[in-house]
């Protein structure tokens, strides 16, 4: 009974952890905007969320970041390549590969951070983080008013 009430909260809390994780990644990218040779990284939120919820969220469509360029889910273009180990996502315990951001304007020092894009991503991610927070607040208020019955 109670599990039914909190399952929605569980989903939102996983989303919140992933949003915080992505926020940290984008902060790293912005911090290293002037570091030669730094490669920008990003999180495929849909894939990570699928991993976190055990695949129960989508209708079986999982899009990997590089699958559009003819490579498989590990980012490999050849079966003989060694798979990337990928970072594990924090407290959720599920491994989700971090993608490398594609370079829009290649620079001579090998830095692949696009500062405009990272800033846009940062704002976008913080708005979504706040939205998730509001969902959690709304749901907990709903549960509380159900408990109190007033």
């Amino acid at each position, binding site marked *: 009974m109670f599990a039914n009430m909190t399952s929605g909260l569980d989903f939102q809390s996983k989303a919140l952890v992933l949003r915080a994780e992505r926020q940290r990644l984008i902060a*790293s990218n912005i*911090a290293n905007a*002037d570091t030669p040779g*730094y490669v920008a990284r990003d999180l495929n939120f849909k894939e990570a969320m699928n991993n976190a919820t055990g695949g129960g969220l989508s209708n079986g469509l999982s899009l990997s970041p590089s699958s559009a360029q003819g490579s498989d889910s590990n980012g490999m273009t050849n079966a003989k390549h060694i798979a990337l180990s990928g970072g594990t996502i924090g407290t959720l315990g599920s491994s989700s590969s971090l993608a490398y951001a594609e370079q829009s304007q290649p620079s001579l020092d090998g830095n692949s951070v696009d*500062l405009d894009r990272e800033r846009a991503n940062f704002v976008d991610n913080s708005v979504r983080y706040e939205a998730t*927070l509001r969902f*959690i607040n709304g749901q907990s208020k709903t549960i509380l008013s159900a408990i109190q019955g007033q």
Partner: protein
Amino acid sequence: MSMFSIFNISGSAISAQSQRLNVVASNLANADAVAGPDGQGYKGRQVVFETTPMGSDASSGVRVSAIKESNEPLRKVHNPSHPSADADGYVTQSNVNPVEEMVNMISASRSYQNNVEVMNTAKTLLLKTLQMGQ
């Protein structure tokens, strides 16, 4: 704690950028300095940034790994009336290019502002998280 490490990441970037700004200030201050009696003028300096891991592999900060002196030739200006002029009337000055340094300064200050904004946003989000369920 995932979100708290944003402060470490952006803090490392802020300190690196402020060091860069310091070096730019030093270069600009010495742009017109003439060489001493040994003939060695001020050589422009540049910071070298390096990525440094912070906690997990996903988060990486930045640090200044070295401050290198520029190897460009020192500027020689023809000014026979100057007390430091050599036999041919040339004065040796620093090899700092003020225009380059100004561009460097603007880039450093913009990066600094970016990271301050990242910290502010992270702080707002964390405060809102604290108020969850109220």
